[in-house]
């Protein structure tokens, strides 16, 4: 007769396997990352100045263009270019603003081009307003209801650099009927080089 040992039973085995399975399910399906990853979204409209704690941001104008013309090249849109003029004012220290993307109603995301003097990022010293222009090539069905997302954290597939940080999401204000009109119009835009914003755009006259 043996002492000090316990028989391994089906009941005990089922308990252990069940506990492990339940643990795996909890880790897999509970949205435990949401609280850690979600950025602080600050929503606004074109022309409104948004406080992102590290900067004040104003989208000053939104245009649409078939063609962008720069100093040494011209770029033709695959769809149409949405040209977003924005002014950044860093409030805490020199700041790089690396994130810029448009999101449409279907959840598709569009990143800006760096052709013809368009910016994909900006960098500003505190105390000055810095003007920059982003140009996004988007398809026809992305125009209506699109929003632009701007932040200091860079855009990536999983927005990893924007976790737990302030992010601006601005309605571009394009209605379905306006989208049709904008799509049909043939416009050429010459993007302005980035620089100090004039007082009319919320700057300090440069």
């Amino acid at each position, binding site marked *: 007769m043996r002492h000090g040992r316990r028989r391994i039973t089906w009941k005990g085995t089922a308990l252990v396997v069940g506990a492990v399975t339940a643990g795996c399910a909890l880790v897999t399906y509970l949205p435990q990352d949401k609280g850690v990853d979600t950025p602080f979204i600050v929503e606004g409209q074109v022309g409104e100045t948004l406080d992102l704690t590290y900067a004040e941001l104003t989208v000053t104008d939104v245009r649409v263009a078939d063609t962008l013309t720069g100093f040494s090249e011209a770029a033709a849109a695959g769809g149409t270019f949405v040209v977003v003029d924005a002014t950044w004012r860093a409030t805490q220290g020199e700041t790089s603003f690396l994130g810029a993307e448009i999101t449409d109603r279907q959840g598709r995301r569009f990143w800006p*081009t760096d052709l013809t003097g368009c910016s994909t990022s900006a960098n500003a010293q505190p105390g000055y307003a810095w003007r920059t222009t982003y140009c996004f090539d988007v398809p026809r*069905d992305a125009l209506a209801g699109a929003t632009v997302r701007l932040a200091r954290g860079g855009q990536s597939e999983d927005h990893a650099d924007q976790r737990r940080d302030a992010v601006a999401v601005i309605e571009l204000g394009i209605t379905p009927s306006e989208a049709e009109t904008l799509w049909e119009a043939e416009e050429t835009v010459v993007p302005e080089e980035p620089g100090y914003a004039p007082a009319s755009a919320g700057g300090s006259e440069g």
Partner: protein
Amino acid sequence: MKHARNDGPDLAFRLGRRMVAAVADDMSTVQRVGVGVVAALVAVSPFGAWNEVEAQADPLTAGTPVEVGPFEVTIEKAATADELGYLVPEPGNHMLAVVANVTNTGEVPVNSGKLGEAIPAPESVGIIPEVPLEDLGADSDDGAGTGTTPDVADPSADPSASPSPSEPEKPELPSASIVNIKDGTSPIILNPGLTYRVALIWEQSDKFSGDVIPLRIMELTWIEESAASLDNEYWLPLDEVAFTGQIPIEPAKPAADAEAGQQ
């Protein structure tokens, strides 16, 4: 009477047996069989027991769209030209362009470099290899003017020349330069829902005289959560050919190419 014994392997064996006995002694036969099956499955896992059987590449033909990763790709044609915009070959070479219509069918933008990874340079058609870093400082007066040997099965090569006893390492072929034919620019980002007519361009030796090129499109797989890095959610090129086919080379049309570059 006690004997001296070598405790090394014997001790390990006895410890292992004791561990197995501690677990298995109290098990029923059915439980032992179950544990044995699980142990066997775990044991064969590192040796590729669950890998899918390597799939045969699907045919690739001009004009037929194929889907690879986030892209729908329709190869239109291959063409050669003395130069294409800012891409000027070395003397003795020309430019080879594969024209394709590419649509990003996904929901997030994709870097055009990913397209270059999906469509590597065709092999054995005289594509000029990348210059190794150690050769960048050396003079390059030999060969086609680049100091490198073109990746070509030269039909005019001397058949009596005996191959080197130690075959040199195969030179790495360069990624394509990708040009948007509509405006002659190099797109960095391919946004969703848009179709781009692009040229994938390589420098090719004049020694190549064929009228078709073998083209491959490699498989891309979506990485939701990377186990190897902090990056998540990206397309990873696999060393697996998804599509392959012979694409005819059209004669050069300098005027049309120049016009395309000016648009």
